[in-house]
């Protein structure tokens, strides 16, 4: 790892200032992806701004929304009775991210800021039409994700919380990469006030995406059967040694049907 300056500010403004003052500074949330990246010398930040002192943890119900602060860990989401009653699919999703140790430290904000194409959370955010609340604005999910590892965030902009509209029902089905256990294909399905939503992570060659054909089919009939003949274009798929594009496209269908069946 290259050395860097370490800052642990106590207020969001200070964190934003620290990041704004130095173009090479990077924010550290749970560190479950960032620290391995540093260890491999794949990043060379001049400074690391630790967000652990900003008080950004907590889960609350706000009207018809579930609001999760950015530094809330996967384990906290998985174990939260608030999440379990409002959006059980989200608790289920969080309970299968990484391993126990990752869930104790990894955070929703860190996951979303990184936008790894095989991360689980982006599919929930996109499918549920969540709003990313940052240190300076509110960003709609549709505007937030801009391709793999790319988001609408400015370098000195921090996610403070994520607001999830509570759906009628939802579920997440994940097919893990056998080695890394990241999502090789993950499909989040939701029945929302705005209609059926299907978001796919892990599979796409440009990060998380909404599956319009599936949404249309589910709007007709919110059943697994309705998805039977909906295909996923191979041209949108990522391919690697674990799954080629044809297999991934097939798995998107299987996981989507399983998610629909599991919706609650």
């Amino acid at each position: 790892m290259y050395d860097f300056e370490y800052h642990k500010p106590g207020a969001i403004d200070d964190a934003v200032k620290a990041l704004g003052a130095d173009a090479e500074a990077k924010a550290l949330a749970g560190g479950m992806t960032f620290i391995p990246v540093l260890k491999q010398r794949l990043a060379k930040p001049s400074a690391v701004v630790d967000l652990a002192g900003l008080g950004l943890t907590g889960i609350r119900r706000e009207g018809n929304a579930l609001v999760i602060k950015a530094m809330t860990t996967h384990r906290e989401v998985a174990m939260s009775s608030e999440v379990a009653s409002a959006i059980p699919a989200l608790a289920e999703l969080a309970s299968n991210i990484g391993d126990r140790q990752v869930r104790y430290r990894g955070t929703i904000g860190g996951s979303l800021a990184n936008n790894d194409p095989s991360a689980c959370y982006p599919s929930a955010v996109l499918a549920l039409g969540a709003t990313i609340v940052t240190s300076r604005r509110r960003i709609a999910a549709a505007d937030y994700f801009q391709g793999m590892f790319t988001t609408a965030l400015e370098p000195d902009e921090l996610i403070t919380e994520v607001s999830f509209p509570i759906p009628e029902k939802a579920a997440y089905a994940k097919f893990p990469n056998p080695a890394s256990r990241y999502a090789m294909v993950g499909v989040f399905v939701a029945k929302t006030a705005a209609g059926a939503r299907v978001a796919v992570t892990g599979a796409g060659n440009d990060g998380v995406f909404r599956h319009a054909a599936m949404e249309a089919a589910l709007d007709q009939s919110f059943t697994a059967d309705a998805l039977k003949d909906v295909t996923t274009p191979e041209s949108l798929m990522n391919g690697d040694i674990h799954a080629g594009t044809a297999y991934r496209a097939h798995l998107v269908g299987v996981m989507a049907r399983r998610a629909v069946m599991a919706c609650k």
Partner: protein
Amino acid sequence: MAQINLTVNGKAAHAEVESRTLLVELLRDQLHLTGTHVGCDTSQCGACVVSVDGKSVKSCTMLAVQAEGAQVITIEGLAAADGTLHPMQEMFREHHGLQCGFCTPGMVMSGIDLVESHPDGLTEQQIREGLEGNICRCTGYHNIVKAIAAAWPLMHDKQMPQAAE
């Protein structure tokens, strides 16, 4: 260089570290607690698992500076002062849950966390899934799973109930 203060295995520790120093490097190289091992560089293997403020953590994926003020427990801190092993250590011995011993400290630390966080019981499947972050190349996991299940009643001081999945 940063000065940090933390508590390791119940004793106050002070160290001067670089920002980039990992918690595992602090433990092994500066505090000479070499029971915590490094088996990979991608946070997959779990040989480095320790407890930080009661949470199971991969010490290769945490900066030492992040442990400022923390209570850290390593494999060296589990046995009683008179050398009596922690029930999890004892059950690993009883059930031959280790061979080469390299993954063992992480397995024991993860096993303790698993048992402590399942006060209502623990099924074989839950143990297997709960060990997702720990890789062992020797045992085939069979006896590790048995050891953790056997430690549950000892750690909770009651019979294992019919565990809920």
